[in-house]
């Protein structure tokens, strides 16, 4: 259970340890209850419910009144810092270009 997330300091490797039906990291415990309810026991003893949603590659996490965003780097891909999603111009080769009748196209890049 290893994952990599992007951060301002570079990629962060996370290795989760199992704890019953949940996970442990840095003294924090995550428990998964019925229907996916997520409960976190923080390393300082406080407990809190967490809410999550994944939009694209980014996990949005609401915890204790705060919202955090962690962008997951897919295994095998280069780091998010290198790519950070789409780049413009998109790398690739144009194989086909459809135009309305009576319009012309001029090539400006090779």
């Amino acid at each position, binding site marked *: *259970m290893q*994952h990599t*997330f992007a951060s301002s300091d570079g990629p*962060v490797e*996370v290795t*989760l340890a199992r704890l019953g039906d*949940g*996970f*442990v*990291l*840095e003294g*924090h415990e*995550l428990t*998964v209850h019925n*229907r*996916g*309810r*997520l409960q*976190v026991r*923080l*390393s*300082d003893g406080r407990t809190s419910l*967490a*809410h*999550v*949603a*994944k*939009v694209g590659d980014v*996990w*949005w*996490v*609401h*915890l*204790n*009144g*705060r*919202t*955090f965003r*962690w962008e*997951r780097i897919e295994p095998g891909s280069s780091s998010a810092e290198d790519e950070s999603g789409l780049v413009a111009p998109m790398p690739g080769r144009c194989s086909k270009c459809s135009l309305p009748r009576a319009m012309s196209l001029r090539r400006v890049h090779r």
Partner: protein
Amino acid sequence: MADEAVLLNGETIGETYLDQAQIIAAAAATNATAIHPGFGFLSERAEFATAVKDAGLIWIGPSAEAIEKMGDKMTARQTMRAAGVPVIPGEEVEEDDEHAALEALRQASERVGYPLLLKASSGGGGKGMRAVYDPAEFDQAAAGARREAVAAFGDGRIYIERLLSGSKHIEIQVLADQHGRTVHLGERECSVQRRHQKVFEEAPGPTMDPELREAMGQAAVAAAEAVDYVGAGTVEFLLSPTGEFFFLEMNTRIQVEHPVTELVTGVDIVREQLRIAEGQPMSCGPLMIRGHAIEVRLYAEDAANGFLPSIGPLAVFRPPEGSGIRLDTGVREGDDVTPNYDPMLAKLIVWAPSRPEALQKMRRALDEFVVLGTTTNIEFLRDLCDAEPVVKGSTTTTTIDDLWPNGWNPPASPLLEDAALLVAAGAETLGLHRRNSVAPAGINSEPANPFNTVQRRFP
């Protein structure tokens, strides 16, 4: 609650909510007898009020004449001065020619004194407004304000007000019926503003006393009566540290922040608007203020990045619930926040017997408000609730800039950040992105229940 909705055809604001003919046609098609313009869009357009009446419908608002008199800020200042309502020291300049106008403004600036504010006569929302602290900056600021005013309102007339630093923004809610009765419903303090837009409003004002309330209330009533006002309106004042107050402007519609007044006075302002428009006398009795109410405006914006509007899906939108909590919103979970409309997602309002209790309830409500998928100002608002001027009630119109002169940033919390990383990694391992991580409130695995949607509010 609307029992019928009409989809406006078109893509842009101009083609939909600002299309007067289409809105009047929708009223006719549904046999509606009156139009309530809400706030924003056409609510302060005198020509729309006239068009509604010309179509044989009831306009739920003041007369076109009152809207025009108060909508033009220079005319409003002159009208208020004549009615004995104190206005901020300053001068109006009536010059069409740009060169002559700028010269007249420069001469007026020397009489008014610095620091000063340049304001567009047709202005609003901070457009065409410039603060000037040094005479050397004046010419450039005046030209910029005039250019912005022409672009935004098609009217380049600018007037000058002395900049009153350390002042509070206090506004008085007024109601006037067609039977000659005009009353005020006390004040709201809306000093906390970012980019000249309010984000935190409360009633009653934390530093107000009954004498000042009555003095400002009577001035607001005089302002309304000076333009034969009918309906609900708000008279805005600046309250200086010395206790003097000055007329700023009158909003000839219901205000975004009206719920705080409703919660402390028990008066349903929209209901009174309907009664007044129908020709009935208003039903509210003598003013009684009970407890304390606070409203915050939840925006889709990045408070840590100069309050820039943000867009994205409302993947999770779960407001807080409970006694003393009210939410006015037009969005639902699953909606997309687009750049096409105002980024305000919701108004969160709390009521409690005292101000400290109301503030504590707001803190808790903001902590429990979950919005995921789009960046919002929830954490900024939560931080605001702990700021000393807010706790003490000593806020002024520059509080946000004073508190965070280099911009706001969320308080660092490495502990929670690490725990959030655990949650993200755990959710990824469990594949929670393929389904709701937590079932929506009131919905379980049973067959679809239509009553689950009864309380939904639609845009």
